[in-house]
């Protein structure tokens, strides 16, 4: 009886190993779909899924492999990110895409490095994501660049004293805030810095502080949950100066918060849906049709078919991963990691080629204005640091 049981167990363990041997390759999707950054994470997943629907297979060693997306929710929390990353590794993914949010990417990076699985950062902009992890690459611009861009733009808007508000302990916001402050001071202008703690809802006092300090612009890179509260309360207190933020604010949550209010909100981002380059235009029309065909996808996109920059980045990240798999001609994570530095790809968000650290060389940001009347983002201008 015992022998029979042992035999059954052995068979049970061997069968899945055979089942896996058929031609599938797994790509891990490491994104938040709940928590503070859930809304943005969902849009990034949509971009990846759309890319997967267009290119569902990849050729390795002359054989056609089906790509299977393995999606894990890191809940926007650094402690949950570690277990989500471990879960991806244990499901034998060949390469990982994500995450939205720098903090969770750094937390997951250690796990991926230990397992030797390469990860491609989609919209995590903190420099340390790639700097501190040899297995992380990234296809978007970085915070030192973004912070400088926004500091320059604030100056163009006529600001002389900035109020910088970030959440304590959030890698993304604190980092971006720091680079903004450095750049803004380098322009010879003044800065007031303050922090709020996780779970804050009452921003009235912070907005009062901005006013009483005589600030004429606010820079508040933070998760959209807080952003909506800040915008709403700033509008209630009749704030007339502009509020600026980074890429996370390019989200329907911001539009909903600003809609119908007398408030000026600007953000920098990676992509503009009215970009008239052929690849980008194709992507936008295809993605919109794909979203509109399925109401649950439309809901995940925030209830409309506005194309978020992170969806475009997700689309590019997936294709970069396929290019790396093709270049490696293998499903082995180590081979893909070896091939990644040499990959170049002409994406919808611009050309992608990696530098020594593993970052894409990108030097263009799109500045957008949350139009309170139309409830959509208006493209303002593209900006690079040189300006």
């Amino acid at each position: 009886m015992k022998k029979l049981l042992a035999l059954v167990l052995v068979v049970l363990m061997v069968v899945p190993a055979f089942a896996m041997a058929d031609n599938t390759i797994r790509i891990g999707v490491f994104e938040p779909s709940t928590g503070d950054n859930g809304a943005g994470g969902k849009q990034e997943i949509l971009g990846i899924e759309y890319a997967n629907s267009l290119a569902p297979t990849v050729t390795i060693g002359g054989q056609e492999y089906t790509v299977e997306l393995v999606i894990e929710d890191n809940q926007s929390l650094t402690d949950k990110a570690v277990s989500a990353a471990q879960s991806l590794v244990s499901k034998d993914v060949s390469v990982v895409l994500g995450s939205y949010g720098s903090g969770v990417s750094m937390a997951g990076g250690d796990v991926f490095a230990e397992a030797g699985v390469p990860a491609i950062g989609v919209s995590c902009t903190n420099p340390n994501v790639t700097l501190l992890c040899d297995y992380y690459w990234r296809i978007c611009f970085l915070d030192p660049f973004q912070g400088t861009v926004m500091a320059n733009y604030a100056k163009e808007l006529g600001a002389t004293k900035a109020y910088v508000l970030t959440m304590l302990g959030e890698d993304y916001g604190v980092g971006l805030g720091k680079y903004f402050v450095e750049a803004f001071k380098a322009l010879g202008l003044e800065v007031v810095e303050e922090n709020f703690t996780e779970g804050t809802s009452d921003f009235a006092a912070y907005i009062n502080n901005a006013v009483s300090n005589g600030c004429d612009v606010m820079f508040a890179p933070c998760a959209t949950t807080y952003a909506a509260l800040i915008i709403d309360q700033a509008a209630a207190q009749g704030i007339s100066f502009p509020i600026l933020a980074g890429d996370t604010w390019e989200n329907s949550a911001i539009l909903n918060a600003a809609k119908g209010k007398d408030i000026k909100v600007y953000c920098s981002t990676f992509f503009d849906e009215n970009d008239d380059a052929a690849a980008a235009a194709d992507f936008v029309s295809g993605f919109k049709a794909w979203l509109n065909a399925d109401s649950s996808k439309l809901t995940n996109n925030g209830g409309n078919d506005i194309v978020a920059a992170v969806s475009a980045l997700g689309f590019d990240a997936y294709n970069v991963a396929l290019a790396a798999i093709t270049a490696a001609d293998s499903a082995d994570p180590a081979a893909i990691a070896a091939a990644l530095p040499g990959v170049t790809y002409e994406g919808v968000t611009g050309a992608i080629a990696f530098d020594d650290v593993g970052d894409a060389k990108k030097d263009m940001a799109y500045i957008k204005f949350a139009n309170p009347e139309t409830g959509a983002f208006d493209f303002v201008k593209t900006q690079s640091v040189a300006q």
Partner: protein
Amino acid sequence: MFDTLLPYLLAGISVGGQYAMIAVGYTLVYGILRLINFAHGDIFTAAGFFMIYLTASLPIGISIPLVILLTVVLGFVVERVAYKPLRSAPRMSIMISAIGVSYLLQNLMWYITGGLAKQYPVLPFLSQTIRLGSAATKLVTIVTPLLTIGLVVALVMLINHTKIGMAMRAVSVDFETSQLMGIKINSVISVTFIIGSAMAAIGSVLYFTNYTAVTPTVGAMPGLKAFVAAVFGGIGSIPGAMIGALIIGICENLIKAAGLTAFSDAFTFALLIVVLLFRPTGLFGEKNTDKV
């Protein structure tokens, strides 16, 4: 000077009033059951979600009473299902049960809403922006403290001058004796939870009109601070809870005004420790040589 401080004071009184609405629920239940109802903050959050889902299909005038009703039902059901069967169990068990309910509610909301922040509906009257001297704010900021004081006065009258109030006082003094006197303690306790939940529902309408994003964990911080307020004011005392909450709300905003934004929460809890060191029963707590 006053001009610069006015907006902070307004924000402080308003947020304090909202904490007070929650704190009354803690203090009432504690006064009668000697139980810290950890699920109270989550009932407050649930009221926020009820409002979001109801206003999606109903006009606001009907939604608000329905939200209060649904929240009351939720509070009542929680008491009947999770606390009543443990009436004679050790106090620790019922406390653990309360923590369990809190996590259950949180995870249920997480599951149903998909974990994303939802935008609270705009209540046309309360959301109006008004100007007071140098400060612009929503009308709800002014309404909150007035409504809070009104409700607390009404509640104190209810407890001091009605039959059910007398029963509540009797039960809070001695469980078994009041039972022997013919008081139906189960219905008294249910009434306590109903009043507490109704206050939490009204508090949530005021709170979320000001702070418009609702997430499954949004009630945790206000809940904790309301609990601190209840202890600060002397747990068991209703006016104490209100005054404690107002003090905490105002102090919190003044600390931020002083530029110490990162320490405002730390301050709240430090204040609690200091008060408890000097007045273990809180500001208005009865000097109790209790059997606990």
